[in-house]
């Protein structure tokens, strides 16, 4: 396949990107005492992109023959040629092409773990949750794995083989008492192997965590709405970093007019705030957003977004990097071979500070301790956001006390970051389960330390 792609690229004038992508996936789900889903999928093919006179033409094929791939290339060229309204100009892309073989590190690759062992894991955890009984009325556990093999060859010199492996795990418990129902969830995501998925939480601890969250929320009050001092767990710090800030600094969004346009070099957050988007993460090499080669064949780099409160840079692909005359950060990603690469995040996180979490809590007279993403949320071009919180507790006179439920947070992300007065010396990536959506899915991760700040809490009058 690599030879076919190299020959076709060499024979085609102008900008050409060819990407073979094979994905093998497995999903196991147990619900209330039975395996309800056991399914496998294979998705493979080659996506072809050419750039002509300011416009991209794209086509794809699932046929691995040279004939069909060449046909897809001709179709992509014809698609670009069909454009009547491109800029008319060709663009020299800023590229740092990847060459060689790239494979994510994996402790016990999951492809070598027997299906029976994966089934046993899911069954065991679900059974332990169900056996709690009492107010627990429904339990489900799901495990998903995705193994990618890519070959990317481009006219800019990329010639890379890339092997990636990602996993997702979720345990859900529903507790009910009369008319009231609550759920508790443990969600994990990782890049790597079987040993990386439970690198922070032992499988035997998962059932207790999930059921305790559900049960503790029963009977918990909904807080009064309004502005509040909050301490955010890294899971929500990551959500803020990714959803509310990260999307506004994706260069395609910047060019469309996001709030950070023309703000490079300006103070956008408190001095304690530094934010990066990183294809690797030294503090957690198994983050779900690990990326060794982007889908334009570029070697991805760490992008410094905010440095001590000052906006330093955006997230780029080859085209936007050339437009802004900066280095390509390698953020171009495509979910399958049938998708075109678009700018996406990787591992997005705040850098740790110097405050201990204990001091943060002890010095808070009244506020909320908030942890975990709940059921949904959104952010906007002007960095306004709203998220549902999975777990919330009061802070009263420097101590974490009663559980609350139905808590949502909202605000303008840069205003919130400007209100940060304490940044923890801890660190966690904790947003690796699930997918980010922007025309197509992407595996990402996010996190940072605990922070204390002010934001709007949605609640009762």
């Amino acid at each position, binding site marked *: 396949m690599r030879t076919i792609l190299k020959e076709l690229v060499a024979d085609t004038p102008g900008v050409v990107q060819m990407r073979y992508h094979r994905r093998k996936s497995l999903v196991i789900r147990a619900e209330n005492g039975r395996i309800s889903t056991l*399914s496998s999928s294979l998705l493979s093919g080659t996506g072809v992109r050419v750039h002509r006179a300011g416009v991209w033409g794209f086509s794809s094929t699932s046929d691995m023959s040279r004939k069909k791939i060449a046909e897809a290339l001709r179709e992509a060229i014809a698609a*670009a040629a069909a454009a009547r309204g491109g800029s008319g100009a060709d663009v020299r892309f800023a590229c740092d092409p990847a060459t060689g073989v790239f494979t994510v590190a994996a402790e016990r690759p999951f492809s070598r773990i027997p299906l029976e062992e994966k089934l046993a894991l899911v069954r065991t955890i679900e059974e332990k949750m169900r056996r709690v009984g009492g107010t627990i009325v429904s339990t489900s556990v799901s495990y998903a794995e995705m193994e990618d093999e890519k070959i990317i060859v481009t006219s800019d010199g990329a010639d890379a083989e890339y092997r990636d492996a990602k996993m997702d795990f979720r345990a859900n418990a529903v507790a009910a008492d009369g008319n009231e129902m609550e759920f508790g969830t443990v969600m994990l995501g990782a890049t790597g192997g079987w040993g990386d998925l439970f690198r922070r939480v032992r499988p035997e601890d998962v059932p207790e965590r999930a059921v305790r969250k559900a049960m503790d929320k029963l009977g918990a009050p909904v807080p009064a709405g309004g502005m509040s001092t909050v301490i955010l767990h890294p899971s929500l710090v990551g959500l803020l970093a990714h959803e509310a800030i990260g999307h506004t600094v994706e260069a395609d969004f910047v060019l469309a007019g996001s709030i950070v346009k023309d703000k490079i070099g300006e103070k956008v957050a408190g001095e304690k705030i530094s934010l990066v988007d990183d294809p690797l993460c030294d503090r957690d090499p198994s983050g779900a957003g690990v990326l060794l080669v982007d889908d334009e064949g570029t070697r991805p780099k760490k992008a410094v977004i905010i440095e001590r409160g000052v906006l330093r840079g955006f997230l780029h692909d080859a085209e936007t990097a050339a437009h802004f005359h900066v280095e390509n950060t390698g953020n171009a990603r495509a979910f399958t071979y049938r998708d075109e690469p678009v700018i996406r995040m990787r591992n997005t996180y705040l850098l740790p500070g110097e405050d201990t979490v204990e001091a943060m809590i002890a010095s808070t007279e009244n506020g909320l301790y908030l942890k975990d993403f709940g059921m949904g949320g959104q952010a906007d071009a002007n960095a306004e956001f709203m998220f*549902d919180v999975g777990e919330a507790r009061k802070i009263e006179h420097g101590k974490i006390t009663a559980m609350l439920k139905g808590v949502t947070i*909202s605000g303008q992300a840069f205003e919130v970051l400007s209100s940060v007065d304490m940044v923890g010396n801890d660190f966690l990536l904790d947003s690796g389960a699930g997918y980010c959506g922007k025309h197509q899915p992407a595996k990402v991760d996010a996190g940072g330390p605990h922070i204390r700040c002010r934001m709007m809490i949605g609640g009762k009058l």
Partner: protein
Amino acid sequence: MKELERLVALACAEGATEAEITRSRSHRKTVFFEKNALKSLKSDSGAQYGIRVIAGTRAGYVSSNDAASIRDSVKEAVSIARASEEDPYNGLPAPEDVTMVDGLSDSGEPSLAEIEEAARSLVETARAYDSRVSVDSASVEFRRSAVNILSSKGVSLSQERSSVFYFIMGMAIEGSDISSFDYTGDAGVGWRKTVGGVKDHALRFGRAVVESLGAKPVARCRGYALMSPDTVEEMLSTLDFLLSAKNVQERRSSFAGKLGRPVASEVLTLKDEPRIPGLPWSASFDGEGVPTRALALIEAGVLKSYLHDTYTARKDKVRSTGHASGGGTSNPSLHAPILAPTADLAAMQGMMDKGVSVRRFSGNINPVSGVFSGVVKGGRYIERGKIVHPVTGTMLSGTFESILANIVAVSKETEPTFIGALPYVLVKDMDIVGETGS
């Protein structure tokens, strides 16, 4: 179908007691605008196979787009089924007579140049509406697809479709004031008829984002919320969860045990109407080949039916309602929801002593706990029936149960959404929480 017959036979030869093969083939052409300019043109084709096998009472599923190795995938499906668990409710449906819904495929097919022209019209009309309009992205797509389902039980069905889909999204910018992000779009079967609405949608988008500039928060209060069709679409997503027989049986839905009982205001009547000719949401059969039918779900606030597929129907000893979504993790789901109208939109706005209209709901409805909380996007503060100003920094909260109970009107006017033409819905007694007073 010969290919599918061979694959079903292979599955049975490998040990499956029942087997079902679904093949979906599609050809698409897409034009994409980004940053107010033409970005890409796309043209490609693909095929996908879904292989569901039952071995005794054990089920396995494999999907693949690799025709060259499809026989290996069939064998893998049987192997997966053998590794799964016995479940007496697993099984494929028996064949039934299916009357095909008319008008789901149109013979006209646009060229890429014509698609580009439509996309350009969408973007340029929006930008020409007002210089403050900024288009983040816009897309127009034409797709032709064909689905075949064949099973060892005798189901043998085919459906061809054509679909046209477009959207535009972006915001308005005036100095440092950036409006709420907004989007609009439409979908249809025939090319000419569907893209005929492009300019109207572009103008609607432009108007919506420009009128969201200068937004202010509102004072905290309890009042009305006038939910737009796009917001109603989100509410229907929660109802989809609650109505799913699978979620009822797995004890995740608060609608469990409530058939025949009130679950909403008597103003609410909800039906699923999947057999209206000529609509892209209509379907002749579901993901298992069971014929679809019109289904009353909630009538005058009373719960009349859940959404069933073959598995959940067997468990409840009822007939499948034809709502299987297919695939490896099937959960019964709505096809084409319709709400019965009760009032004119103008009259509904006139009822609002104090409240907000909700153009988009940026938030969350927890389908398990029912907690409803989110930010009003692109909305307006309304007092004594008149629009006062656009809103920002304003949240709604409550429970989904109370929202259903407090529906006071459903508009006769509808607007297109991504799941069909939906009305406005007026809800009373919503908690409205603003950052500051107004």
